[in-house]
């Protein structure tokens, strides 16, 4: 906060130019399969994206599209039935997939940290907040008990917990939901990770508390200069704080672009449909525009374009081929044979 502690911060305001420090996290063709009784399905299918230095990347999509599983794949914290089958996850140039479990453990919480959706259940109920912070520092051998305690108090103050030195000895149930999410953020940032993955960090919170937490994430990003992957289904949240956005549909990324581009000129028909169906953009008294049809089941994905059956822009090619994610104009990547220009009308 006090000094220009990171290069990234000096690099400029949130509307950023090409990043100075390269890309701390690169995901390449990541595929994660889930075993079910009737076979295996790719719940994360050939997903590629990268996060630039001190950038907030929004990963959006409806429930079941694979966004959480993507995050868990990066952390290698997958449930038993899921397995990464191909692709690379490069953290600072190092492929996490190839690491031994012990080495991966050293990376979790230190180089890449994660915050989860449910603040009420994400902390161990039987340990004090302080113990849970201190043990994290100790597990990575990053200081004596004394130092760990001081660092924890400092971090709690940093995320806006009043009287941190005493509240350190409280149990989670003595914290409210918003306060617990602050603790989760403190926990994640204790060891100054290069990348923070926040999975629906504000979904369980009230809007007034959500506003506080979103502000906090922005503030912490500016102070610590870490890169953030923000996973959410709420386009409003993404719009408020993300620099770039990746949209997922049925296990794949369908469109990636800067936040400005995505919200002003979405090109994929799915992105367009999502935005159009938002009640805040619709004219009162008229029906809300809807995306016809339903998300396909994981086991029954069409071999052609997965959005094809629901797509208003469908052409014959969409029924025959599976589109790939191609670089479009500028910073945009798009998975569509027939993109249309579309300008979101705001104001009036």
């Amino acid at each position, binding site marked *: 906060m006090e000094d220009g502690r990171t290069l990234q911060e000096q690099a400029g305001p949130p509307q950023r130019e090409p990043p100075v420090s390269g890309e701390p996290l690169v995901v390449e063709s990541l595929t994660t399969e*889930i075993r079910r009784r009737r076979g295996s399905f790719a*719940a994360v299918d050939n997903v590629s994206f990268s996060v630039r230095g001190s950038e907030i990347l929004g990963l959006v999509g409806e*429930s*079941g*599209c*694979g*966004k*959480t*599983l993507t995050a*868990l794949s990066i952390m290698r914290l997958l*449930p038993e*039935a*899921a397995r990464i089958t191909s692709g690379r996850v490069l953290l600072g140039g190092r492929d996490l997939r190839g690491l031994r479990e012990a080495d991966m453990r050293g990376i979790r919480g230190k180089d890449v940290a994660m915050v989860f*959706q449910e603040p009420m259940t994400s902390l161990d109920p039987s340990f004090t907040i302080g113990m849970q912070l201190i043990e994290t520092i100790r597990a990575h051998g990053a200081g004596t008990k004394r130092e760990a305690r001081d660092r924890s108090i400092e971090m709690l103050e940093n995320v806006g917990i009043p009287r941190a030195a005493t509240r350190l000895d409280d149990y989670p149930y003595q914290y409210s939901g918003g306060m617990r999410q602050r603790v989760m953020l403190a926990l994640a940032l204790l060891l100054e990770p290069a990348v923070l993955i926040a999975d629906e960090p504000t*979904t369980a919170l009230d809007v007034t508390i959500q506003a506080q937490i979103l502000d906090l994430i922005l503030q912490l990003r500016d102070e610590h200069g870490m890169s953030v992957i923000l996973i959410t289904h709420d386009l409003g949240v993404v719009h408020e704080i993300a620099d770039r956005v990746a949209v997922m549909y049925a*296990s794949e990324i369908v469109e990636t672009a800067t936040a400005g581009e995505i919200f002003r000129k979405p090109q994929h028909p799915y992105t367009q449909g999502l935005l159009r169906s938002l009640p805040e953009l619709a004219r009162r008294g008229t029906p809300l525009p809807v995306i016809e049809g339903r998300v396909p089941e*994981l086991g029954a994905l069409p071999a052609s374009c997965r959005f094809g059956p629901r797509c208003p822009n469908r052409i014959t090619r969409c029924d025959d081929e599976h589109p790939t994610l191609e670089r479009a104009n500028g910073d945009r990547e798009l998975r569509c044979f027939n993109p249309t220009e579309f300008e979101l009308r705001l104001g009036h």
Partner: protein
Amino acid sequence: MATRPADVHTGGAALAASGAEGRLRDAFVLLWANKVALLGLVLTILFLLIGMAGIVILLHPGLHHLWEDQNLRAVLVTPGSEGHLLGTDNFGRDLLWRIVAATGLSALMAVGVTAFVIVVGLVMGSVAGFFGGRADTGITGLIDLTWGFPLLLVAVIFAGMVGKGLNAVVAAAAVILWAGFARIIRAQVKTLREREFVEAARMLGTPAWKILVRHMWPNVLGTVLVMASYYVAITIIVEAGFSFIGLGVQPPTPSLGGIIAEGRNFWSVSIWPSVIPGATIALIVLGLNSLGDGLRDIFDPRLRRF
């Protein structure tokens, strides 16, 4: 217990099993897939069949000779001997038929007590959980009063009150076990009551008794099945132990515990008269417990024995 939408969709994995929410038919499919539970089911069915045969030979005076007739020339015969598949006891009585008769007695008593316990527990628990208020206070008080006491202690005190015999242990089991079951049902009904489908039924003007019968009871059916299999097992063990120490079923009426106790005196000659009934109890209880565990895994993993 309700699977919240967020859980179902986590990571597109939908890993959460549908659990208790499925149809009963699905439950049998799941049971079929669980081999241990299936073995439990087979053992339980076997136990009930043998039990029925036992009840017949116990109640029909013309068949008493099967387990009553002594033959002092063939005492403590080893199993597999001619005419005595499981051998004989110290009076030369046929062990197989004695065990069949004793199993009948156990089955009759255990199933009877369990049926009583389940009905009383279900009604009391439902009333307390559904209506709340004074009915709840009263019933909960009654539950708290009885449920922490050891069944055997109560049985022994009853034996002092009404004399030795089956009555004491049956009464004790009835008095103690219902409370544990009512506690479980009360908690479940209370949770169900808060469920929105019950609120919807109330909104539609469905009368209380009908809500209980149509919405509550089908949803606690799993619990009833699970606990019933545990209670039958518990009652059998307790009755056997009670008879073993001489306070339960009195000779010459055969009981599994009694046969073991008698056989124990002749252990140095032949171990079979006590080992065979002992193994019988073990198999029955194993079968019931495995069945109960399997059902529990399907319906509600949080249920515990007792």
